[in-house]
């Protein structure tokens, strides 16, 4: 009896100990995030003004605003979405719903993982070689969007695949048993259930697109271009590259630092807004699917 009492006591103590540890680590993660946001906000909020987000840059980019960079980044997000969402979602559906579990599926899965592991600067060089030079798009929104699109493909494919994989087979069987075809089953039963989760992957990919510098470096980003693009074959400024330029090549650091933090803050706020919008969409689709 004595020893079992002691054992139980230890059991409880260990439980408390381990959970406390998890809690502390969890708080640490959140703290890091808050610290970053706080840091950027403190240094950037003074720069933030209506003019800052609606005016052209002036005087070696230390005055004026970052309007063209915001528009440029939005163009790139939009462009890569148009290209990567359908391609990624359809690939994910194909891999999970249509391929049998054989060498081909494993090969595609391995290649998707490899694609995700390639450093983004390599995508940049690839984009330059293929879209800018070989296909002759030049430094342009379309070249940059395609490059960013390829970069985000693995994330979209993977989340689509995982979202579909997590759906219980009983839904599929139930649908087939009622005389539905495979396509009908996917469209009317599987996709509505998977959609809220697929959207999560899309959010992640959009966040990544808006923050990447390397892939746009050689494919679209302009160092200084105080006008808006008039078509998809135009160059644009983009927030992450603008941030890089201001932080590295300015001669007047005291003037340019606040602009850099302001730009960073705008970028973060933009991503935040996109995420909130996407979360709203996610909830919307989740409510449409009557899970409970």
């Amino acid at each position: 009896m004595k020893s079992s009492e002691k054992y139980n006591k230890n059991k409880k103590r260990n439980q408390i100990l381990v959970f406390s540890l998890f809690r502390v680590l969890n708080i640490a993660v959140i703290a890091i995030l808050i610290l970053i946001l706080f840091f950027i906000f403190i240094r950037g909020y003074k720069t933030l003004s209506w003019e800052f987000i609606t005016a052209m840059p002036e005087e070696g980019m230390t005055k004026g605003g970052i309007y063209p960079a915001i528009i440029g980044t939005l163009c790139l997000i939009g462009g890569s979405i148009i290209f990567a969402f359908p391609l990624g979602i359809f690939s994910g559906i194909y891999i999970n719903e249509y391929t049998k579990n054989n060498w081909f599926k494993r090969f595609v899965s391995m290649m998707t993982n490899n694609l995700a592991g390639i450093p983004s600067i390599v995508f940049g060089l690839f984009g330059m070689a293929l879209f800018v030079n070989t296909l002759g798009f030049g430094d342009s929104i379309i070249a940059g969007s395609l490059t960013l699109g390829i970069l985000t493909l693995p994330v979209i494919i993977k989340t689509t695949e995982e979202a579909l994989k997590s759906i219980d087979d009983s839904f599929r069987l139930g649908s087939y048993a009622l005389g539905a075809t495979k396509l009908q089953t996917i469209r009317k039963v599987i996709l509505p259930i998977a959609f809220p989760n697929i959207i999560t992957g899309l959010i992640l990919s959009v966040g990544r697109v808006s923050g990447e510098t390397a892939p746009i470096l050689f494919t679209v980003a302009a160092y200084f271009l105080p006008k808006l693009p008039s078509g998809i074959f135009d160059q644009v400024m983009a927030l992450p590259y603008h941030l890089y330029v201001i932080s590295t090549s300015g001669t007047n650091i005291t003037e340019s630092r606040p602009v850099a933090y302001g730009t960073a803050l705008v970028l973060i706020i933009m991503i935040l807004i996109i995420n909130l919008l996407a979360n709203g969409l996610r909830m919307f689709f989740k409510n449409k699917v009557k899970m409970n």
Partner: protein
Amino acid sequence: MYKIETTNINLFYGNFQALTDINLLIKENTVTALIGPSGCGKSTYLRTLNRMNDLIDDVRIEGKVLIDGKDIYEKKVDVVELRKQVGMVFQKANPFPKSIFENVAFGLRVNGINDQKYVAEEVERSLRRAALWDEVKDKLKKSAFELSGGQQQRLCIARALAIKPSVILMDEPASALDPISTAKIEELIYDLKKNYTIIIVTHNMQQAARVSDNTAFFYLGKLIEHGVTKEIFLNPVKEATQNYITGRFG
């Protein structure tokens, strides 16, 4: 003529033979219970009747399955048409995450029927048939997931009835339900017999005895004995059958 005739069915999962030389004749408007220990092949046999086994990789099926005299494994047979004729209810109720109404309407919609009035009529008819209408008529727009387990299973039966099958396959339809819900499902099976040919897999001996006209005992992928339920339970010919129904193994 028999409603369903299966001759020399052999079924393989890869190298594993799950069914060996199954010969079984099933009459129209009867309930046939398939009994046997887990892994004996009764569910596999059930799924050959609406070709659900086709969905599993690496399955090979030999032999003949005739429904209304037509071989359902012939090349030109449309599986979708077959499954409209042979409905299925699963072990675990699997309503779609849609409204009660849309669950029942699903089979109609995927088969191209969109006339709102007709769909509504059919949904009501099917729900009445499945003895669920009175419980759900005021909440047809609510999610099917709000129903209890027993109601969900009856919803799945209603869903299967809506596409007007002539055969209904039931794979342990009551095994996850409480006794009251089970009794309701059994009553329902008894009613449905008038219009449908029903084949039910069950682990519950009493249930087999209560609901079925005929019983088939499967063991290790073989059909050991088949006959009138009463006979099978009272005077089984084979020793294995005797042992199983008296609970000496299972």
